[in-house]
């Protein structure tokens, strides 16, 4: 069972981040939500492994829950 890699792994972190922001430019909130959904689905399929995906879902949820509770 492989775990989610949470160590630094980007070729170029800054370039990715600005590309992500750029991808949302000019979109309404609704369109941005749709873009995020599609991005999640495309990346999830690329990862494929159920254990990694579940780990990612858990960590993402945990992060949101922690934010809400503080």
């Amino acid at each position, binding site marked *: 069972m492989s775990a989610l890699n949470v160590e630094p792994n980007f070729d170029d972190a800054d370039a990715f981040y600005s590309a992500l922001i750029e991808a949302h430019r000019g979109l309404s909130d609704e369109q941005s*939500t749709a873009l995020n*959904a599609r991005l999640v689905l495309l990346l999830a399929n690329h990862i494929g492994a159920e254990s990694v995906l579940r780990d990612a879902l858990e960590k993402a949820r945990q992060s949101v829950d922690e934010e809400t509770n503080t």
Partner: protein
Amino acid sequence: MPSGRQNPVYAYRRSADQDAGVTSRHHPVVIVGAGPSGLTAAIALDACGIDTVVLDDNDTVSTGSRAICFAKRTLEIWDRLGCAAPMLEKGVVWQVGKVFFRDAQVYQFNLQPEGGHKMPAFINLQQYYVEEFLVDRIGELTRVDLRWKNRVTRVEPRDDRVQIEVETPDGHYVLSCDYLLAADGANSLVRESVGAVARGQEFHDQFLICDISMHADFPTERWFWFDPPFHSGHSVLLHRQPDNVWRVDFQIGADADAAQALRIENIRPRIDAMLGEQTKWDLEWASAYTFRCRKLDRLVHGRVLFIGDSAHQVSPFGARGANGAVQGVENLAWKLARVIRGEAPGELLSTYDGERQRGAAENLLHSTRATDFITPKSPISRVLRDSVLRLAKRYPFARALVNSGRLSAPCRYDDSPLNTPDEDRFTSLARPGSPCPDAPISIDGHPGWLLEKLGGSFVLLVAGPAVPDELRTLPDLTVLELGADFAVTSDDLARRYDLVGGAAYLIRPDQHVAARWRRLDAGAVTRALRRALGCELKEVA
């Protein structure tokens, strides 16, 4: 019903149990309800030599088409019981499905059946035909006493029997039985009588189901629309049945007024918008429904055994209601017969609960997931659903996520205590607990099918060499020897069973694998047979 078709009416007949002065009104098995589950149970028990009385409050078959999609495993079971031929003849075979989102087709799929099986992947056939053919089959049998217009008013389970009170056109009578099969549907009176509670999820979305007869040339395909322009915000399913009847299933939402939706002046514009006003059609039947996904915690309550919708209900997406029900009945019948005949301990019945809880849980899981995809419950789940559909048009990966119903597949009883776990290595998927795959064979030069030779009793399927004599004389075991009893006409058998030189399979009366070995050993077969009859359960208990 299509114009011109009249449901058969079955005459009420007074039974001997109603005569004054009858001393014994006791029967081994009484079945409450003559739907697909109850009728199949009666036929399966007849095949095991068990007498049954079937009580039904009506005098005809199902009103409206209801269950319309019957899967290969279900057809195999009915074929074993001698009822599949008229169903295949009448039914419509389909394999192409198309999925649409808004105004465009997203993709299409083809359930191209794998060759080398007697039965097709699916047929579509109205439930009223299924029931009629099952009743016809019962007419050929001697051990089924099918009593129409016999309404059960009270069920009282006792330690040594179950007492049943019945209302008929001639008045009231009482009978009793060793075992009662509750096949009385979603609103089961029997379930209430024994205090059993079905647990699960209730869905509030309403659906409008219309059977229309069309005089248009429409392909024999399953079409599913998500959010089409002619029915914005909801889903629609179009599916073909025999007699040029088409099932149209509109999701109409939780807040719709079902009584209004059912009025012909409101149905007409919906269907015209879908088919175009030039298409001529007549309404045969319409019904509005909501559904529940739920099951009993225990399918066995002492002498009362639950089958079909009284035991478990699923959403219609995936055709898992009637198909799951028939597979459950097949699981129960051989066990009940052997307990009644004193050949197996009563504990064997607990494995009906274990194995079919697993089957029901699988069916519930798949049908609940399909429901959640078809009717998203939150704004974000709708965004994700619509994103899947948008991506699916372009990228094949997303098609795996599109869920308009995962069509019924048989359950593998992987962890059943009746299985003898594999000790030898096999490359085939026909592992202990699995339903036996079919394969073409020939017997005395005549073409046939493997599944025609399996079931009824236990079968020892062997590929030589010599079978020890002691295995040929065991009760309830039939030896089926490759070479001596049949020949293969393709490599399907070898592939599906990995059945080569010396290997053997022990197969249950319901055509599920109980055990398999690379080398035949009489002692191992005898032990596996005892285990598959539940004898070890008794020792544990």
